[in-house]
């Protein structure tokens, strides 16, 4: 995340070859123009696309959130911050926020730990390493919708495979959608299944760039493999770990498809269980905006969510920076 420090050297905007005295040739002028403006030209497409399809909707949404705005009928009058004050007093909003955080923690922490372990496993001298690496990445290529469909079956209350297996070891069947903790667990498992392998490969890449002499000296000192892993490997890839934490935060705060499709009501009437026990913020946004047609309120949720993600990511960013500079 840290931006590389600029190198000293050739001055800003100046061509590498000093211009000859007198009237510069067209070539030089072209060269200077090239050095000065081409960088802007090549980063422009991103900002253009983002500006039109990202920033514009974002600002428009901010505008909408300050109104009583019905999805179909549009603007019903300016209301200032009314949507926001109502939101802050809305039990369902706080409930959704809590669920979002809980699901985020439940899926991220075990996921990253599992990914670390998996990376360590893949870091050993393996036969057919490409096969194993490709294998763990496989879940990442399946669309969320298909994943949700399959997991909904696996976690069926009466005849799902998971309950069947629990029954084999003598555990009573669990109503995966009715209980708060059970539903969070089931949804987190979906997220984990999809992303653990992916993160493991990122960790693996970082692990492989840890200088081997560090291991050698530790090994010479007779440290156990476990100790080497925790005292050398993990600290060395700490910035990468923190980075994945930030990235998972941004993704986790916007969790939507998995829990929405886990509700048997789906996108029609699904409110994340009969007591909103697994309704996330984006699900609430969807409910308000697309089911109840309250675009103004929905936009306010969107903006609060945006600010939340921003704050959480910035905090992570600051922490990551500090730790990285210490390391």
């Amino acid at each position, binding site marked *: 995340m840290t931006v590389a420090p600029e190198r000293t050297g050739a001055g800003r905007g100046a061509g590498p070859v000093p211009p000859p005295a007198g009237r510069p040739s067209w070539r030089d002028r072209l060269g200077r123009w090239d050095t000065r403006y081409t960088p802007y030209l090549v980063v422009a497409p991103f900002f253009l696309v983002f500006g039109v399809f990202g920033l514009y909707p974002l600002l428009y949404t901010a505008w909408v959130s300050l109104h009583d705005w*019905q*999805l179909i009928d549009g603007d019903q009058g300016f209301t200032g911050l009314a949507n926001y004050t109502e939101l802050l007093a809305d039990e369902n909003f706080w409930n959704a926020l809590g669920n979002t955080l809980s699901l985020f923690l439940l899926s991220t922490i075990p996921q990253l730990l599992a990914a670390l372990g998996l990376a360590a496993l893949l870091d050993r001298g393996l036969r057919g390493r490409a096969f194993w690496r490709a294998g763990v990445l496989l879940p990442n290529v399946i669309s969320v919708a298909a994943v949700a469909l399959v997991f909904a*079956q696996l976690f069926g209350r009466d*005849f799902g495979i998971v309950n069947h297996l629990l029954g084999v070891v003598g555990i009573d069947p669990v109503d995966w959608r009715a209980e708060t903790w059970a539903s969070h667990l089931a949804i987190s498992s979906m997220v984990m299944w999809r992303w653990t392998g992916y993160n493991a490969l990122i960790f693996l890449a970082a692990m492989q760039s840890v200088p081997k002499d560090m291991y050698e000296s530790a090994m010479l000192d007779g440290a156990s493999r476990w100790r080497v892993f925790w005292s050398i490997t993990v600290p060395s890839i700490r910035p990468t770990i923190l980075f994945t934490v930030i990235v998972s935060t941004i993704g986790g705060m916007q969790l939507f498809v998995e829990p929405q499709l886990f509700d048997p009501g789906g*996108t029609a*009437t699904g409110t994340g269980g009969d*007591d909103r026990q697994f309704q996330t913020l984006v699900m609430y946004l969807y409910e308000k905006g697309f089911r109840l047609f309250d675009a103004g309120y929905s936009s306010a949720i969107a903006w609060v969510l945006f600010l939340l993600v921003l704050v959480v990511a910035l905090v992570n960013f600051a922490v990551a920076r500090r730790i990285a500079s210490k390391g």
Partner: protein
Amino acid sequence: MSRIPVGRATAVAAVTMVATLVAACGGGGGGAGDDGKIKLTIGVFSDFGYAGLIKEYQQAHPTIEIEQRTVKMEQHHTQLATQLAGGRGAADIVAIEEGAIAQFRQSKDKFVNLADHGAKELEGQWAPWKWNQGTTDDGDFVLGLGTDMGSLALCYRRDLFQAAGLPTEREEVGKLWPTWEDYLKVADTFTAATPDKKFVDTAQNVYKAILDQTEEGYFAKADDSFIGDRNTKVEEAFELAATLGEKKQTGALASFSQDWNVALKQASFATTTCPAWALALIKAGAGDEAAGKWDVAAAPGGGGNWGGSFLAVPKQGEHTEEAYELAKWLTAPEQQKRIFKETGNLPSEPAAYQDPEVTATKNEYFNSAPVGEIFGNSAESLQPTYRGTKDSVVTPVFNNALSRVESGKQSTAEAFAQAVREARDAIK
């Protein structure tokens, strides 16, 4: 439309620039036909049974080309809302389900008033309540023409009734439960005899069926105000249904979900409310091996309606006149009759549902039940409930409350109190 025109114009200009970065990326846009034909689109969900009719209409009208779009019901309504909001993209004719029409009635200025095309002359075709549901402004604004309806019956499993020592013939079964209180008594008898089977799939559908037999539900007919907290009918219906849940006589299943399918296949519940269109669902879920085991009886408390749709014409279409003509033709009795024969969707017009051909229809899978007659009768005695504009906002709140009772999280009283509170919040 353009609320911040300058911003929009800039954005459009910028996009056009970006677009030039990619050369042609194909894609067939809608719009006018290539060969001078008028192209009409019709947006539906599930199975309206229009495929054959469309072909026929095209043959009779060579200048018209019709395209049918089918998506899932909830998606259909969400998309329609987005398209109406965006002012573009909606089909020339759109289907709107009965549960959603109140919500769209609010945005009637996005639709063509079919009365302008002479729709009022057709009024007599429909059962009066069906016609009224599709109109607003005291009947001056005709929003949609009725397609099918979902008149209510009760499906039951003969073998499970037999095992519990209950009668199995549909007339006798119907006589077991003239009222919903009687239905609950049958439930007790059933549970006492066969405790490991559930009497009904879900309390939610029982609740909906009872509520739909009252004149007013959550909202007052007079002024559309919320009365769910003081209308005793609501509380009574809730209590009746919740009692089944408290006694664990329901399967606590989300209707038509995968778990529901599995439960059907496993024969783990004995009755379910069934509107005409649900027969196909039961058959699909229970599978061939259950042929003849399910049967159809009259519902407690008389008839009722559940579901059914309307065809409306959004204003944004280019060919609203032609669209109206097509909608008119598709909803005419002759066509409704043919759709019934093909898909089982029950006609909403007396001329169709009283037609001997329709009333004589039997459903083999359901032990050859005379479904035409049963549903037709149910439609006759039907007193439609008033649907408020925010009905679809409040309904899920009460359904969730029932589900909490079924799973043992709350008592009936607690759940109802919470539902009322949430409903008040939701309609603010």
